[in-house]
């Protein structure tokens, strides 16, 4: 207990856990989501404390920002559909049904066992495990970038990252498939102050997103954080109705969704040959290739996240045309 920062750590950790409990136990769903967003931001803060600024950025932008927006949008849609939009509280959206006692006991047993497993695994683990530090440090000069996290994401373990982009693609295809041009809750009217704010921040967000992307080669940041920040532009445009998705934009949107996956996989294939295997970038071109991939992936991520927020595929519907 010599370090006074430990007290800050204890308080922060306690706040994180308390917010987690609160966001699940509070009755009003809207409050639950707001508490969850606070929880996410504090988690990001504690990851900054643990020297993980990239992760904190990603969590704040994607895990909390985009997810929070998705949750709030869904809540609004549910309340609109079930006709409780005007009521003061939206306690829950699913009618509760009685749960049979054996199911409760089985669930409790399952939770208990898993938590026991977690505790055993954590307490038995070495405090600071062996890692890839040395290996990564050794390979860094050949990676083409100066920031280790970017090197891991886009060079050493690029295969994982490609598949992660594929997961995003699968998500947007699935979402378009699931929601079939259904009418949406009417967009909230936000007023002149909001519009001024949107006009002021839109260019700033574009700059910040691009900066994060560019900076990712040597400092915390990169395609995912930059993409999430740029996705915020899409969210703002959608929210303020400056952009309304049209059925005729579907083709472009499809190309934008697959751009990152296609470019990433294409580069991975094209560099193979001449004794090299897939994903093995020639060292002299590594930086260019990585930046190219990152740039295109960023566009895909931004468009995909915005599309995930918008949800349904824009198809021609009478309710679509009727809305101003």
């Amino acid at each position, binding site marked *: 207990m010599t370090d006074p920062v430990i007290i800050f750590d204890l308080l922060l950790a306690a706040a994180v856990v308390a917010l987690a409990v609160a966001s699940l136990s509070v009755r009003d769903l809207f409050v639950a989501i707001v508490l969850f967003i606070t929880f996410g931001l504090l988690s990001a803060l504690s990851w900054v404390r643990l020297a993980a600024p990239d992760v904190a950025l990603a969590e704040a932008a994607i895990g909390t920002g985009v997810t929070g927006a998705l949750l709030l949008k869904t809540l609004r849609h549910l309340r609109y559909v079930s006709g409780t939009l005007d009521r*003061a509280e939206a306690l829950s959206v699913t009618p509760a049904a009685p749960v049979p006692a054996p199911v409760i006991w089985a669930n409790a047993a399952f939770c208990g066992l898993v938590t026991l497993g977690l505790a055993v695994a954590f307490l038995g683990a070495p405090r600071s495990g062996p890692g890839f530090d040395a290996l990564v440090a050794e390979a860094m000069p050949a990676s083409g970038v100066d920031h280790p996290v970017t090197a891991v994401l886009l060079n050493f373990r690029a295969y994982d990252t490609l598949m992660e982009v594929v997961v995003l693609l699968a998500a947007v295809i699935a979402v378009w498939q699931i929601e079939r041009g259904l009418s949406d809750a009417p967009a909230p009217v*936000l007023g002149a*102050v909001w519009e001024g704010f949107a006009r*002021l*921040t839109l260019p*700033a967000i574009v700059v910040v997103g691009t900066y994060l992307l560019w900076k990712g080669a040597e400092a915390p940041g990169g395609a995912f954080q930059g993409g999430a920040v740029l996705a915020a532009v899409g969210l703002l445009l959608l929210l303020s109705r400056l952009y309304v998705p049209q059925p005729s934009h579907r083709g472009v949107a499809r190309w934008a969704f697959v751009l990152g996956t296609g470019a990433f996989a294409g580069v991975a294939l094209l560099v193979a040959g001449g004794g090299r295997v897939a994903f093995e970038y020639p060292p002299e071109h590594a930086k260019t290739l990585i930046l190219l991939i990152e740039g295109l992936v960023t566009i895909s991520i931004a468009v995909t996240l915005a599309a995930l927020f918008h949800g349904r595929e824009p198809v021609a519907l009478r309710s679509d045309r009727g809305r101003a």
Partner: protein
Amino acid sequence: MLDILGAALIGLGTVFFVAGTVGLLRFPDIFCRLHALTKADGLGLALIALGVALMADGAGDVVRITLIWFFVAVAGATCGHLIARYARRAMPEGRHD
């Protein structure tokens, strides 16, 4: 010297944040709470930004801190406005906190 001044400003800013939080928790209705929050946070944020800027290494960092302060302040003001607006709209339908 600058460091001490900076630390003092940050400490003062923190006091404003604490005051704003107390107001958020203690005040009776949504408008009073917003009042406490936006006033206290606006000033608190400015003081903390100033304090950090004094401790910064170079001009680039100062510019960045200024930008951060500006955007957070604008976003905070807009949020306050939106919340107040929503609350006023919801009022006639019988929402009393």
